[in-house]
């Protein structure tokens, strides 16, 4: 099915349903992600991509099915326990805390694994954040907030990163920086699930792409198949 060499499995999602009150958002998501793999979720707005990440973390009011993280069933766990299995999350709305300074935001998440970056390494990677570290979190520019949201989860030693629209609304030069960061993380051996509108951003970064529609996975494309399927992909994404 794919040219990807077999690797150990880090995440296996089976028949995942998610509900907000009466609304049924995910209708049985099935996906799996191997260690060191970079995978994207592609789909139109409202197709259930963000909800999939939230449901993996237990951030939806109700979810059923199975979410195995590193071989452990997490469907009955509270979200802080799930995260502590080694997950880092960068939410779509960035989630910078207004009442915390930039540095407090940066050091807020507790460590969830070994091998996280030191504060110094992070500041070398994002020099802007060093300059703005005393500023209130929400006084930062959009790009700085996005870097902060990324930097925040690099410190904690997570092995699996869930990144929701990290390039949304950012200037091309910042998107390039983030591209370098994500590539660097891949080289460090991190596993990632990315949600992206910007297909060009991820087409070279990701090993595989899951296509989501109406809360279901409808297709899966490997990096090698992209060339042959560009047209159908564009039709699917409505670009």
């Amino acid at each position, binding site marked *: 099915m794919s040219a990807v060499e077999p690797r150990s499995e880090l995440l296996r999602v089976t028949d995942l349903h998610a509900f907000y009150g009466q609304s049924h958002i995910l209708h049985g998501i099935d996906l799996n992600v191997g260690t060191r793999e970079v995978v994207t979720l592609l789909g139109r707005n409202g197709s259930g991509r963000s909800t999939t990440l939230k449901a993996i*973390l*237990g*951030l939806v009011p109700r979810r059923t099915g199975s979410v195995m993280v590193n071989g452990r069933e997490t469907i009955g766990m*509270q*979200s*802080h326990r799930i*995260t*502590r299995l080694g997950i880092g*999350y960068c*939410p779509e709305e960035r*989630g910078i*805390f*207004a*009442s*915390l300074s930039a540095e*407090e935001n940066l*050091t*807020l*998440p*507790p460590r*969830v694994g070994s091998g996280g970056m030191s504060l110094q390494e992070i500041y070398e990677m994002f020099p802007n954040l060093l300059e703005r570290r005393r500023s209130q979190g929400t006084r930062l520019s959009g790009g700085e907030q996005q870097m902060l949201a990324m930097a925040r989860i690099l410190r*904690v030693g997570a092995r699996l990163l869930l990144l929701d629209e990290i390039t949304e609304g950012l200037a091309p030069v910042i998107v390039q920086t983030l591209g370098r960061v994500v590539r660097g993380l891949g080289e460090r051996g991190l596993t990632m699930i990315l949600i992206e509108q910007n297909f060009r951003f991820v087409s070279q970064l990701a090993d595989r792409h899951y296509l989501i529609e109406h809360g279901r996975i409808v297709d899966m494309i490997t990096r090698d198949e992209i060339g042959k399927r560009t047209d159908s992909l564009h039709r699917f994404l409505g670009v």
Partner: protein
Amino acid sequence: MIQALSGQLLVGLINGSFYALLSLGLAIIFGLLDVVNFAHGAQYMLGAFVAWMALQYLGINYWWALILAPLAVGALGLGFEWLMLRHLYRLDPLYGLLLTFGVALVLEGSFQNAFGISGNSYPVPGLLQGGTNLGFMYLPRYRVWVVLVSVAVCFANWLMIEKTRLGSYLRAGTENPALLQAFGVNVPLMRGLTYGYGVGLAAFAGVMAAPIYQVTPLMGSSVIMVLFAVVVIGGMGSIAGSIVTGLGLGLIEGLTKFLYAPASDVVVFVVMALVLLLRPAGLFGRQR
């Protein structure tokens, strides 16, 4: 003239100290739990009663009571949060308000039943008896102690919340508890401990109040109404706001007693109405 004014201002400052201590706890609890803790007055009363009973039956003195009563009452608060309150977070905040209001009624009712309505006096500890004559007024030592300790405790809490790592968890949890939990912080445990801490602060104020006011089952219900006015004026959940407003309103009350005594009971609510008209989020509150 100056004697009457300074006397009333001192009373105002004392009352304000208690308003500040109590509304601080209310603000912390409201911030993280979104619960309007109507039992706060009853928990304050409980602190005073635990101190009084400890002295009466066990011979435990004021200084020990100042440490032990908040711990004991705080532990009760922790248990209450775990057994009952935490099950209501997913519902409308009104349910938490009703539950804590019910608990206040039960506590106050049982204490009235057991100890009667009339007050019990609690002696001023030996070290703090007496006072100084300033010429224009007599300054009782215990009252100075109350003001100093309240201000110190409030300031220490403000520092802890605004400047420490623990405080950054509390601020983040107040803003977005779901995201904080998604980062791996045990928010449910934090809520329980925060509630216990706020309740412990109320009990601490109760012990401090015991030698000044009578220890009575209804001492909390008389203060709780003013307290909510303080929290509304300061801005729901604002820590610095509730401290400053607590002290300020105590002084305004004292000043009103001097200028036109009959208005002193309503002046706080007049201020509240004005603030709500001009700044609905409170003096220090952020618009939600």
